[in-house]
């Protein structure tokens, strides 16, 4: 039982990261109806932005871990990723707005490859060690918790979960209560109508890219705090898995992406954690998400919370 709870906790903190990345996919899909393949690599850039900013920020605390420093690094990385997302949209996707979706998809693959390989050129191929921002350690669980004292809960796991919830609430607020959020929702229903109603679609799309990329940047920092080894190809697997999470929750649906991310994180951790009993070698870890994706697309292509869209001729 304790083992199960431990796996669940590990799964939840992994799932929170998937959820943050999945939100970017789902929001962009909502407004533009295409899969932003390069999103996982924006996540990688977020981690590297933190890697280069952190030493400068930690100077103020004499190189010791500091929570203020961590917050500054997180925010700066989010800003850098937001700018990167907006620039990518402007340079690569906007000129293709009216072209077939396949053209845009191929461009997105190109952008993704470019970020990965240019990253290898700029940041080096070898994994780098992300500085310790918060002094990560296991939380000591008070003795009165009985058998739960055997659990290992890291500070970073709690942090990831708390920050994810804060960001989700903030996102919910932006999407539901602000004018730009309303424009985003309207655009995802009918772009022509919004432009006729005086909404500047370009601004809304840029904003969506910025928002999604900022969340990916935050995820990049959070994962680096948990697993401090970062490299230019680190965005590949989480990117694809977050996409699976978005499809699992119903692509285009914001709560769905969060739900899908958490579910995927938990399922993946459980399958790997119980690999002996399930007779699945743990090497199949990376295939779990794909099996799941194929199952969803075959049996419930709209995802858990998505709605059915009829194809019109």
């Amino acid at each position, binding site marked *: 039982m304790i083992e199960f709870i431990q796996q669940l906790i590990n799964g939840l903190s992994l799932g929170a990261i998937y959820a943050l990345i999945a939100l970017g996919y789902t929001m962009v899909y909502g407004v533009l109806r295409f899969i932003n393949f390069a999103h996982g690599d924006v996540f990688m850039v977020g981690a590297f932005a933190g890697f280069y900013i952190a030493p400068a920020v930690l100077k103020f605390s004499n190189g010791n871990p500091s929570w203020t420093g961590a917050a500054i690094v997180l925010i700066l990385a989010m800003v850098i990723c937001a700018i990167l997302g907006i620039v990518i949209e402007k340079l690569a996707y906007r000129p293709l707005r009216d072209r077939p979706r396949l053209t845009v998809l191929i461009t997105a693959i*190109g952008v*993704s490859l470019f970020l990965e390989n240019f990253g290898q050129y700029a940041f080096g191929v070898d994994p780098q060690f992300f500085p310790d921002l918060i002094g990560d350690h296991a939380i000591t669980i008070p003795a009165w918790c009985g058998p739960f004292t055997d659990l290992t809960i890291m500070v970073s796991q709690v942090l990831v979960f708390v920050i994810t919830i804060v960001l989700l609430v903030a996102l919910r607020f932006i999407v539901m209560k602000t004018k730009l959020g309303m424009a985003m929702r309207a655009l995802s229903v009918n772009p022509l109508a919004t432009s006729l109603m005086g909404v500047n679609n370009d601004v809304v799309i840029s904003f969506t890219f910025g928002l999604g990329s900022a969340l990916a940047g935050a995820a990049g920092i959070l994962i680096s705090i948990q697993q401090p080894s970062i490299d230019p190809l680190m965005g590949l697997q989480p990117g694809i898995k977050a996409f699976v999470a978005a499809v699992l929750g119903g692509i285009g649906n914001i709560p769905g992406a969060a739900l899908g991310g958490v579910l995927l994180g938990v399922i993946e951790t459980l399958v790997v954690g119980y690999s002996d009993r399930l007779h699945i*070698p743990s090497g199949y870890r990376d*295939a779990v998400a794909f*099996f799941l*994706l194929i199952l969803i697309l075959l049996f419930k*292509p709209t995802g858990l919370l998505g709605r059915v869209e009829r194809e019109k001729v």
Partner: protein
Amino acid sequence: MMIERTKVILIASLALILAASHFSSHIDPYYYDITLSIGINIILAVSLNLVNGYTGQFSLGHMGFMAVGAYTATIFTTYLPGLLRILAPLGSLLSVSIFFGLALAVGGIAAGIIGLLVGIPSLRLKGDYLAIVTLGFGEIIRVIIENVDALGGARGLSVTAVYSKLFWVYAMAAVTIYVVLNLVNSTYGRGFLSVRDDEIAAEAMGINTTKYKVLAFSLAAFFAGIAGGLYAHFKQFITPDGFNFMGSISIVTMVILGGMGSTGGAVIAAILLTILPEVLRKVSDYPFLPHWLVPLLKNQMIPYSLLLIVMMLTRPQGLFGGIPLKRKSA
């Protein structure tokens, strides 16, 4: 008349390849290596073009099928040497040819069957979803091979026999081009094109779109499997990581550069993109280059990715898109 002429061309080119292969021992090993790589890439690009170009589907998992073919053919030649001994009375050239031909065929058929199994469920999906699912299947195939010890796992498998000579590679390339061209100019080809141009209209006209999609998909997988068998018996060492997602992307780049739905374009693009990294590597040895430029030139994926983006922005139909290799009055 048409078919007979293409057959003549096929036989003539096969004869030409046979003649050329006699001089292969005189070629510098470096250039020989590139020449064979070009041939294998031609098979891959032309076969993928059947799916991505002519049928308008978007597969990102071609390398998965190549891996199936490579491993199957390798197992065939490694574990069935007895068959070679049975064939021995036919003389060494003939027996090896039959043996290797069988190995390639088995690899191709295995890949084709996997393609069929993957294609039937996933081709119900469209566009981006299909791309992701084929990517997923490609990765699943790779992960499975990585975890099967009998296949060498992540360490890879060494192939003792070097059967893939110039003749085999280019003969297979010629056959692939022949089959694809003839198929595209047949009733089936019209089916493929109709699925690409307007799937709903095609369905309304009573065309079984799923059948055509699955056919194109498994046929492409078959040829990818043959390319895999050739690759294994030429490189003499295969690892699951050699058939990763990046490889699939480079083949997609060839198809896109050549122009989707243009076999000639795919051939030319396969040649260009196989030579390009070698040229860049040569250029990067040039002593007067600024030192920051050298790693940029050595990483072939940076020019590949920029090529993809610029191509899509300026000429999405590809270099030779919209110009069929030969026109034929329907």
